[in-house]
């Protein structure tokens, strides 16, 4: 061996060990894995196919790979690019070369149109290096510009094993999906110490930017997991539903019977106002074991997630009558918008399961912008050109019909179940709205009979057979035929080709 061969072998060995042992020990105390061990769990056969910039800052023994590992491996045999921060080097804080490495791997992922994984565990950026990594054309800001440019072109999956503070907090925000390990993952713009100076609040890191907060309140996080191993498992499961890029479709899987054999008609109450559990409906409808819920803990009045019907992927948007009556709020509108956009970007057909009495009313939600948030959701549903089926499970009132892909929104099929009811509002509310003055003027004993008579007329008008006869819905399907009907329709709709509109960009509400 020449001296350079020996030097190379020694350097690779040194660099692959990461930072000093004391930092590895600290990781172990925090139940964190070394970045290279995370990649072993994520990638097929634990193997990195190739790595760029391994020798970044190799003249500085304290900066192996300059705190980030970038390269390509495979998941389910498909190539993926990755950027994994190494918290044993400068606590994962980015330096000049780390930024250059990130830009390089993003460029490569964009050009080769392969998915990008971000394994995040970083103290942010090294402020002492700021002029060489923060403000310039090809510096820190460019990584976010790249993420935005990649959005909807290739899947971008972020897994947060540790912190992602200040500017770095935008990395999970610009990714399609963010998986957060409870207790270790965090994201915040200003630390608790900075917040105390500005707002005088005394707040813990967990309260302000912890994984649970982001997965339940802010909506930045999509999956809250208990361990790093679970995080990586979830990332792989999510990736099963993703194509390589926007030109592809998710791979089919083998068909599986639903996990539950409880008949759908036993799950849905006849009475429009009684609660039922939409998860039970989903379990009796989709392939067993296929449902992967997104944002389970955030705005649970709307359920979003991927599933399979006879092996073919669908994205489900379903109202949950057990939570807040399934009524749509600001957060559920955000959640639905984001999910519909994800499905449309990556050719995942949409399935809406509607049981909604509309958007929430009242001054609190008006001040919070329920109109523009609802409009945003409706816009996302409208511009989604993937195969789109809306099943009217039970009631579907007001703008809830719009958000749940009613007939006017480019929906390929609106299927009513026998329990379906479509209207501006329910009978009781409608009669109050139309006849309130007339009823008030009546003698007391005449009011209730009049109200009942009018409600009966109203119910006849919105009877689902009447709506089917007027071609408002495409069909009424027996409960027991729904799964078969959906499988048949998605099979036909898979060749759908559509564009929504041509413009520089739409100006939908946000």
């Amino acid at each position, binding site marked *: 061996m020449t001296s350079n061969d020996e030097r190379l072998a020694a350097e690779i060995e040194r660099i692959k060990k990461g930072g000093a042992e004391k930092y590895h020990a600290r990781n172990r105390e925090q139940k964190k894995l070394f970045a290279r061990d995370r990649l072993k769990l994520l990638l097929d056969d634990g193997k990195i196919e190739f790595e760029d910039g391994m020798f970044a800052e190799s003249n500085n023994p304290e900066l192996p790979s300059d705190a980030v590992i970038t390269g390509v491996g495979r998941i389910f045999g498909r190539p993926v690019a990755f950027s994994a921060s190494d918290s044993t080097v400068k606590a994962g804080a980015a330096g000049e070369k780390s930024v250059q490495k990130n830009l390089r791997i993003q460029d490569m992922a964009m050009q080769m149109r392969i998915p990008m994984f971000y394994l995040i565990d970083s103290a942010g950026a090294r402020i002492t290096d700021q002029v060489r990594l923060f403000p310039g054309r090809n510096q820190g800001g460019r990584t976010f510009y790249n993420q935005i440019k990649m959005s909807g072109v290739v899947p971008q999956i972020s897994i947060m094993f540790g912190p992602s503070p200040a500017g770095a907090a935008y990395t999970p925000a610009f990714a399609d999906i963010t998986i957060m390990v409870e207790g270790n993952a965090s994201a915040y713009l200003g630390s608790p110490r900075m917040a105390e100076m500005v707002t005088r609040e005394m707040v813990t890191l967990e309260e302000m930017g912890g994984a649970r907060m982001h997965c339940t309140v802010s909506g930045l996080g999509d999956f809250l997991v208990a361990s790093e191993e679970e995080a990586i498992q979830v990332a792989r499961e999510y990736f099963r539903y993703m194509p390589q890029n926007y030109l592809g479709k998710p791979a089919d899987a083998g068909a599986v019977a639903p996990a539950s054999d409880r008949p759908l008609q036993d799950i849905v109450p006849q009475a*429009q106002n009684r*609660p039922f559990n939409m998860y039970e409906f989903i379990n009796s409808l989709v392939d067993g074991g296929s449902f992967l819920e997104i944002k389970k803990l955030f705005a649970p009045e709307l359920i979003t997630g991927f599933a399979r019907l006879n092996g073919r992927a669908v994205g489900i948007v379903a109202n949950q009558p057990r939570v*807040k009556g399934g009524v749509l709020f600001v957060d559920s509108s955000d959640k639905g918008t984001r999910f519909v956009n994800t499905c449309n970007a990556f050719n995942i057909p949409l399935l809406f399961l509607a049981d909604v009495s509309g958007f929430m009313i009242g001054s609190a939600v008006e001040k919070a912008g329920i109109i523009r948030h609802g409009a945003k959701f409706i816009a996302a549903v409208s511009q989604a050109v993937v195969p789109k089926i809306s099943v009217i499970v039970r009631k579907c009132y007001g703008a809830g019909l719009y958000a749940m892909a009613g007939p006017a929104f480019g929906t390929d099929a609106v299927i009513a179940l026998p329990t379906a009811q479509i209207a501006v509002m329910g009978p009781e509310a409608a009669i109050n709205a139309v006849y309130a003055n007339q009823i008030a003027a009546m003698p007391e004993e005449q009011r209730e009979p009049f109200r009942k008579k009018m409600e009966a007329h109203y119910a006849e008008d919105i009877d689902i057979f009447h709506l089917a006869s007027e071609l408002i819905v495409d069909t009424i399907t027996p409960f027991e035929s729904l799964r078969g009907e959906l499988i048949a329709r998605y099979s036909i709709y898979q060749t759908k080709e559509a564009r929504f509109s041509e413009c520089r960009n739409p100006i939908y509400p946000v």
Partner: protein
Amino acid sequence: MKRVVSNMAGVILEFLVKPGDQVAVDQDVVMLESMKMQIPIQSTVAGTVKSFKVGEGDFVDDGGTIMEIE
């Protein structure tokens, strides 16, 4: 003292537990009516129901206390 709070504005339709009952996390403890829907409210804590802070037919706001658990 732990509390069960409403997650939306509405009227208490029916209590599903009574003082002295043991409740578990995620157990339905009260039925609310709002937006013409019957909406079960779950306890977020485990313990014994100590007292109700509102009665059936009462209005409760979003975040309002429904019962105390000890």
